[in-house]
């Protein structure tokens, strides 16, 4: 307990310092609240409008999780195909990189133009941004099985299926989790980006992305801050959920989970 307190001390000190600087800047430079609201103002807004924040959180969370789950299913399936043959891998991998390098803000409006504007299109945007890290990391995990272990399974006349289930997939699990952690944060960014283009004409009360556009256009900067904070909370929540799941799955045997264990 004392150790946990010690661990939390420095980050907490930094947090307080930033709040103090923020408040100081607002007071000293007399910054108007529509440019930079002070910490108490933001806090008051969070409390006052918590109902709409929670509603927006829910909508965006569903979209982000939907896109994320889709990217896990598709990403792992694609990785399984990639792992089967170097030829397939070499011919298709460049295009998955393309998927990653095309700016999502440029693709999002296209997707929303082509498909019906709504939650499923936003999910698609989240999916596109999430899928590459999962494909890349899972493929790496599947193909990096040590030669001796493959030979061991060959000596036991193991079928292709049991080689996959009992060797390649468990071996790829830590790499899959690397991808899952990266994509957990990305899914929120994807959903927000999608909403910036999607909900504007579809629904009056949209998710966090839509609300951000709305608050911005109305110069409700305090609400904008509240929304940004809510978004960060969502990102952290996703990230820590995945990290917790990773620890549960790998704690017995993998280095990455062992380090958490040792602390």
């Amino acid at each position, binding site marked *: 307990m004392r150790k946990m307190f010690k661990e939390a001390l420095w980050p907490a000190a930094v947090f307080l310092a930033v709040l103090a600087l923020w408040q100081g800047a607002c007071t000293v430079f007399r910054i108007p609240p529509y440019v930079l609201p002070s910490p108490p103002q933001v806090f008051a807004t969070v409390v006052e409008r918590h109902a709409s924040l929670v509603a927006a959180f829910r909508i965006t969370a569903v979209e982000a999780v939907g896109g994320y789950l889709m990217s896990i299913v598709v990403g792992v399936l694609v990785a399984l195909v990639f792992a089967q043959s170097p030829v397939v891998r070499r011919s298709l991998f460049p295009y998955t990189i393309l998927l990653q390098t095309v700016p999502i803000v440029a693709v999002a409006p296209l997707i929303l133009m082509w498909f019906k504007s709504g939650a499923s299109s936003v999910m698609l945007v989240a999916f596109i941004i999430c899928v590459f890290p999962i494909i890349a990391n899972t493929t790496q995990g599947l193909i990096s099985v040590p030669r*001796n272990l493959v030979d061991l399974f060959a000596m*036991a006349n193991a079928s292709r299926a049991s080689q996959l289930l*009992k060797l390649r997939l468990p071996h790829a*699990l830590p790499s899959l989790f690397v991808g899952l952690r990266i994509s957990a944060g990305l899914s929120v960014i994807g959903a927000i980006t999608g909403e910036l283009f999607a909900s504007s004409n579809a629904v009056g009360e949209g998710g966090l992305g839509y609300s951000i556009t709305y608050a911005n256009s109305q110069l409700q900067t305090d609400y904008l801050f509240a929304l940004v904070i809510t978004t960060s909370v969502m990102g952290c929540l996703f990230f820590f959920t995945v990290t917790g799941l990773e620890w549960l799955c790998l704690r017995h045997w993998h280095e990455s989970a*062992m380090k958490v264990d040792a602390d």
Partner: protein
Amino acid sequence: MKNTDTGQPPFITLGDVTKRWSNGVTVLDGIRLDAERGDFISLIGPSGCGKSTLLRLLSGLTPISDGTVTIDGMAPVAAREIMSFIFQDATLLPWRTVQGNVELGLELAGNTTAAARREACGGLLRLVGLSDVAGHYPRQLSGGMKMRVSIARALATRPKLLLMDEPFGALDEMTRDFLNEEVLRLREVDRFTTFFVTHSVAEAVFLSTRILVMSAKPGRVAREIAVPFPFPRTSALRSAPEFLERVGEVSAALRTVKGAH
């Protein structure tokens, strides 16, 4: 050819076995060898003499370029049913417990129930003195312990032929000596035939019934040295004069082989 009087063919026959890599290099050239049931054959020689390759040919993991390998009347790949391979490192699955790792061979063979596997492997773990760590994961074990798990896993399928590719090379001398005695003890229980690759002359003499000293480029059997000491052998053998004499003989043979290059 020892068994000519009974008319039985030898357990393992290598007939002019040759292995060439695709770049034209000949690693093994015309290896001729018969092995009887219960033989413990050590392969020793300079690096590049193809001793590990010979094990891989026996296991069918690497195909032969020329010649024939017959194991109990079968080709190597078909004979995998009756053999186990122990690698240089323990090659344990880190996500499985000791028990789970030992059960792997039987599980992949697929003709046992989970209860039967647990039973069989529990007995084996007792035999090798690993019962206390059955629920541990490999990362919690020392190098020597890991290797014992690897040996237990190999023996779980009751192999008739055991291929060991320098399994104790990475261990300290005390652990190595201990595991040497362990292997001989297990061999008394289950009379498996063994091919054993090593760099240690003392280890080869202590374990083997026959030692094949190999030369490199191309790999050939330069000399065969029989080790007639009776089994069971104990650690006392290591300080016996006849043991040291045999070690000297093998070392000298090894020097001639190395000196040729």
